[in-house]
């Protein structure tokens, strides 16, 4: 019996099939199948800049106002075979992009997850981007792969959507850049942007690396230019090598765990001690893995319920109002109770969807 062969970057099976990166963390995009939506649970999000939509996917929009909405499985079209979810964008007006506008959906990849690409050196490896896309518009579309910390290297790319309202799979292979300074630890490495409309100041020739700020190719279709235009995407994969391979289908728990390095919710079951009759300080440990950095704390429930276990329940009228965290955990503060026993112990319980707080350590 013949066995397959493996070298550093290439595996060849006994029947002669070769592919790079078949095993391990093949897809460097997290939530590429658009399954996880911790923040919005399938609800629509207005596309203002920096807002997080589905996990790990954020909006780029410097035009001053939202020009599109983002929603998991918007309009409930049938996803491509093998997928259950997609990220859907709907243009909310017929907006003519200004010269300095950049609008799109993007993901920042952490340096630890791309360090083996050796980008910015003579040993830089090629990558291949693949994805499924569907739009009410047809024509040439675009995006870019960018050095995400300072924009020191940019690669605009194009792809063509041939048929309206039809899922099509696209593949883009990109030579490894020898330019740019690429983070290899817990900062921004690659910024992958799918343009929904980019102005002339930030567009340029596709298909090569540049230090010019080209976030999209010249002449690409502007989704935001048509009121009601749709753009759906799923199965996004960015892998090492020059060959697009099958989508890296990971267990739900593994994908969620990857997301939770950047965003996680907590709530019921947390335990705290009253600092006064009005304020509870609650332990918030990140037991399974630390977050990428010390997270920002946001209340997700303004009427947090707690119990002293034996006799009484209490409800805050403010929810989580702050806290002191590290990337390993810490404590949050829930304010505006009445009647707590200072020094008493309380447990958080029976809140809407079990969540009272969201921790964010996004890139």
């Amino acid at each position, binding site marked *: 019996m013949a066995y397959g062969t493996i070298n550093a970057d290439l595996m060849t099976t006994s029947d002669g099939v070769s592919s790079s990166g078949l095993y391990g963390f093949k897809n460097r995009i997290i939530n590429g199948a658009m399954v996880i939506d911790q923040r919005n649970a399938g609800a629509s999000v207005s596309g203002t800049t920096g807002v997080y939509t589905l996990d790990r996917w954020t909006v780029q929009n410097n035009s001053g106002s939202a020009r599109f909405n983002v929603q998991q499985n918007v309009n409930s079209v049938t996803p491509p075979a093998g997928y259950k979810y997609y990220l859907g964008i709907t243009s909310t007006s017929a907006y003519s992009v200004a010269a300095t506008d950049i609008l799109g959906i993007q993901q920042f990849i952490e340096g630890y997850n791309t360090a083996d690409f050796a980008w910015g050196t003579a040993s830089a490896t090629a990558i291949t981007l693949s994805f499924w896309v569907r739009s009410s518009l047809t024509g040439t579309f675009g995006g870019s792969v960018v050095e995400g910390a300072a924009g020191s290297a940019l690669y605009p790319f194009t792809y063509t959507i041939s048929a309206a309202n039809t899922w099509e799979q696209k593949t883009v292979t990109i030579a490894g850049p020898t330019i740019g300074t690429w983070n290899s630890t817990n900062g921004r490495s690659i910024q992958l942007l799918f343009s929904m409309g980019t102005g002339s100041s930030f567009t340029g020739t596709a298909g090569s690396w540049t230090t010019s700020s080209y976030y999209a190719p010249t002449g690409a279709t502007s989704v935001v230019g048509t009121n009601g235009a749709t753009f759906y995407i799923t199965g996004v994969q960015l892998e090492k090598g020059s060959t697009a391979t099958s989508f890296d289908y990971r267990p739900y728990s593994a994908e969620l765990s990857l997301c939770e390095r950047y965003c996680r919710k907590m709530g019921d079951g947390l335990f705290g001690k009253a600092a006064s009759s009005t304020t509870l300080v609650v332990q918030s440990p990140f037991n399974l893995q630390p977050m990428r950095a*010390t997270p*920002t704390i946001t209340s997700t429930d303004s009427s947090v319920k707690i119990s002293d276990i034996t006799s009484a329940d209490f409800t805050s009228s403010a929810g989580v109002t702050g806290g002191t965290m590290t990337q390993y955990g810490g404590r949050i503060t829930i304010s505006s109770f009445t009647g707590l026993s200072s020094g008493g112990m309380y447990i958080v319980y029976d809140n809407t969807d079990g969540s009272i707080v969201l921790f964010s350590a996004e890139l």
Partner: protein
Amino acid sequence: MYKLFKDVNRNITTSVIRLSDNACIPFDPANTDYQAYLKWVAEGNTPTPADEGTQ
């Protein structure tokens, strides 16, 4: 706009509240919300002082 946040246990300022959504932002240079806060301060703005003894 931002407001400083004082840790109730240690009585020291450990983070800053973004008033637009009441998010509590730690003083961690790797936190992108903190980076945005530092940019805001560098533009000449000053956060509101923390409340005393109530957080």
